């Protein structure tokens, strides 16, 4: 945009020069053309001034530079001519209007003509523009030097092509040698210091940006601009992207030319050494709702974590992943067009990702993947050394992929080691451009997972057994992951089935899990031994329906545990069950008598709880309103445990169970 002002000055100078030699004359021209610029109604007067000197008056009605959409009017300059030895000097005031309605712009100027060479200096604090003629008459060249031009002077001009711009600040300096002809390329050095801008919606903004570089401008039709420069510090905001640039050494090169109603950026090179290197081209239409019409990322090399910290930090933070730690190197290329992403390819070398707070991580991620919206892409592979999902350790695996018509598909079944068994990816299809509920299609299986290791990993009391199961269909939509099929646990010499598994916000705020659990013929002696609540023998069956864990804590379920075939129950277990029932009533037996026996026979045992609103609604084998039987005795001494608290606060119940497990006397309300 600086060209506009620059051009104005150049033309003023040229016109002024042409007339400077014609002292004592009145000259007029209807129009004058140079460099694609046309000046209309030019008048030059050299008349008598004060103290016998001469006054120079220069007027032009209009100056047009269509190439840059520039239109200036009412140009006027006036100064007393001062003859000096072999030279002329003229210092005065110049004025012009940038737009018909705008206020006239005034500037002081000093023009000197020495040995037929003109030197013109325009001053308007704090800016200074100097134009000087170099070389001989045959090959006259113009040298231009602009210093400290406040960018807010150009704000109206800039707003014409970027209406959302609300504020701009900073200073521009330019050094250029003007080309001998309109078609010859213009070369200039520029520097922008302390560039800051903002837009009305505040989505694009910059502060303290420094830019310096060289521009080659070819004023052909269409014009063409070649930029080679450096970014030296400052920060930039674009939507969710916020970048604080390095103070030195970020290279930015590109070519720019108009293409119909848009601008084509080609040969874009952005190089932040040791952090990020980008080679790209783009088609940008600033007037469009989505200005980026085309983007071809020919190569992107990102070194982690530096590139994440500088370029992705703000975007990750918006998505809630501000604490992601990364390492390694990512090379990528991609193409975007009017239909969105058209193709993408990535190569990963030794990438580690880790989000400790969520217990998610992957180490030694390496491989190459390619995806195309249409057609077929070359096959790829992706391998990793280890991974963690919600604190469960997954082993090394190598996956093979292929892409066809917008789907990235796992080529063959992959086994991922998991706690002595495996998590098998039976099938996995990713459709990045599909509707939100259809982007992921997968089928999984779990085989022979060691429950002792699993319970340890989850921080539960350790118990043995194996876990297996199949999830033939996995769906993810609206932050909800649904798993059809089910898992089967061979545990405590019985079986436990988990179905209706669904995870909400699996990696977000308040992750929650829903499931239905049913179990049969669990060996109570193994189970009670594991949880250390006193020994019971017999076989336990039952269910936990509509289980809902929020943040891995139960908030709702309907559970029924029962052993109907009888067995024996230890004194400590009697206490535990009594405490759960809330009374510790062992009907018909005195506590002192009870103490004489280690175990008792029982015919039936049953305990139920429906958890809702942090309250457990208790039940037993039967219920008659206020009371319910938890244990029905058999043989002698005959015990009968009856609960009589039909509602127990869940936190109280958990406290009681913990107290029972740790052997301290339960607190009974």
């Amino acid at each position: 945009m600086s060209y506009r002002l620059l051009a104005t000055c150049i033309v003023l100078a040229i016109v002024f020069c042409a007339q400077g030699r014609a002292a004592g004359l009145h000259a007029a021209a209807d129009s004058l053309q140079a460099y694609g610029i046309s000046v209309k109604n030019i008048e030059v007067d050299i008349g008598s001034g004060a103290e016998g000197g001469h006054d120079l008056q220069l007027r032009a009605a209009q100056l047009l530079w269509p190439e840059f959409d520039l239109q200036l009017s009412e140009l006027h300059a006036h100064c007393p001519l001062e003859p000096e030895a072999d030279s002329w000097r003229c210092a005065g005031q110049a004025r012009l209007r940038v737009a018909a309605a705008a206020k006239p712009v005034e500037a002081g100027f000093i023009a000197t003509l020495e040995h037929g060479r003109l030197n013109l200096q325009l001053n308007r604090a704090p800016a200074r523009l100097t134009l000087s003629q170099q070389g001989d008459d045959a090959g006259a060249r113009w040298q231009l030097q602009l210093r400290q031009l406040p960018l807010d002077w150009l704000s109206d001009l800039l707003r014409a092509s970027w209406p959302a711009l609300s504020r701009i600040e900073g200073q521009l300096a330019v050094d250029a040698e003007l080309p001998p002809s309109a078609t010859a390329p213009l070369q200039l050095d520029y520097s922008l210091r302390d560039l800051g801008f903002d837009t009305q919606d505040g989505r694009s903004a910059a502060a303290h940006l420094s830019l310096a570089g060289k521009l080659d401008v070819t004023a052909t039709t269409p014009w063409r601009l070649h930029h080679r420069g450096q970014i030296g510090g400052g920060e930039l905001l674009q939507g969710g992207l916020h970048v604080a640039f390095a103070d030195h050494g970020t290279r930015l090169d590109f070519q720019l030319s108009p293409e119909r109603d848009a601008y084509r950026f080609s040969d874009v090179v952005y190089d932040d050494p040791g952090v990020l290197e980008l080679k790209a081209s783009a088609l940008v239409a600033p007037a469009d709702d989505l200005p980026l019409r085309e983007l071809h990322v020919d190569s992107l090399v990102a070194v982690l974590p530096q590139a994440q910290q500088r370029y992705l930090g703000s975007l990750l933070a918006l998505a809630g992943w501000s604490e992601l730690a990364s390492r390694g190197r990512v090379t990528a290329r991609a193409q975007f067009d009017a239909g969105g992403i058209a193709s993408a390819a990535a190569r990963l070398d030794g990438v580690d990702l880790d989000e400790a707070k969520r217990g998610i991580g992957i180490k030694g991620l390496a491989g190459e993947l390619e995806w195309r919206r249409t057609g077929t892409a070359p096959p790829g592979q992706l391998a990793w050394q280890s991974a963690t999902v919600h604190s469960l350790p997954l082993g090394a695996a190598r996956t093979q992929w292929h892409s066809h018509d917008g789907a990235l598909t796992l080529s063959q079944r992959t086994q991922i080691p998991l706690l002595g068994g495996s998590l098998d990816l039976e099938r996995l299809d990713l459709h990045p451009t599909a509707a939100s509920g259809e982007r992921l299609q997968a089928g999984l299986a779990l085989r022979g997972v060691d429950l002792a290791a699993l319970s340890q990993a989850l921080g539960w009391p350790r118990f043995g057994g194996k876990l297996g199961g199949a999830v033939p269909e996995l769906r993810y939509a609206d932050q909800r992951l649904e798993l059809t099929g089910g898992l089967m646990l061979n545990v405590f010499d019985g079986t436990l089935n988990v179905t209706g598994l669904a995870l909400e916000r699996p990696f977000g705020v308040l992750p929650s899990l829903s499931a239905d659990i049913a179990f049969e013929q669990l060996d109570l002696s193994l189970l009670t031994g594991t949880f250390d609540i006193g020994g019971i023998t017999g076989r336990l069956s039952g269910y936990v329906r509509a289980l809902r864990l929020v943040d891995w804590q139960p908030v709702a379920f309907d559970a029924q545990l029962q052993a109907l075939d009888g067995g024996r129950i230890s004194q400590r277990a009697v206490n535990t069950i009594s405490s759960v029932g809330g009374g510790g009533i062992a009907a018909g037996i005195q506590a002192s008598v009870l103490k004489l026996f280690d175990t008792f026979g029982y015919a039936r045992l049953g305990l139920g709880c429906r958890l809702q609103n942090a309250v457990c609604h208790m039940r037993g084998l039967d219920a008659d309103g206020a009371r319910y039987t938890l244990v029905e005795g058999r043989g002698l001494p005959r015990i009968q445990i009856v609960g009589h608290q039909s509602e127990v606060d869940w936190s109280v119940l958990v406290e009681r169970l913990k107290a029972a497990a740790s052997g301290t006397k339960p607190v009974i309300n």
Partner: protein
Amino acid sequence: MRHLRTMLLSLSLVLLSACVTINVYFPAAAAEKAAEQFIGTVIGEAAKDAEIKPPPRPPQAGLLDFFIGSAQAAEPDLNIQTPAVRDIQARMKQRFDSVLTKALAAGSIGLTRDGLVAVRDAAAVPLAERSGLNQAVAEENRDRKAVYSEIARANGHPEWEAQIQSTFAAQWVQQARAGWYYQDASGAWKQR
């Protein structure tokens, strides 16, 4: 006569809706009360003078709580005090105190009609703080969505989520301090 007909019609409509929605009736008053208390705690000394704090809940008082609760529950109660929701509430309060109250007072963010917050005038925020504010708004909205969804589910009615969200939306505006911006039903920004 016309009055009587209108009255009879409304009465029968009320009876009809009561019949149809039995058991799935949304406890509007309870939801409003829950939202009022939740938001009062987050906003701090709100439009009201005193800070509203949920009563402390010692572990041993659980049963007592229940009986008092059931005595008051003339209509279905709406429980929002799960430990996870309480954690989020504490986090939201901290975020309000450190970032959002200031931004709301400055008008750079506002309360949306769907019970969330949105950046209203980003240009009013210095660039250095804008990215942080965007992040705070995104985090706040994630927390709020989780709370609305969780309250509905914790009470056994996932389908209530939209109603809970709009109940909260009204309460956020209700308790907004003077000068804060909020969206009216058409989505236009207004000032308290």
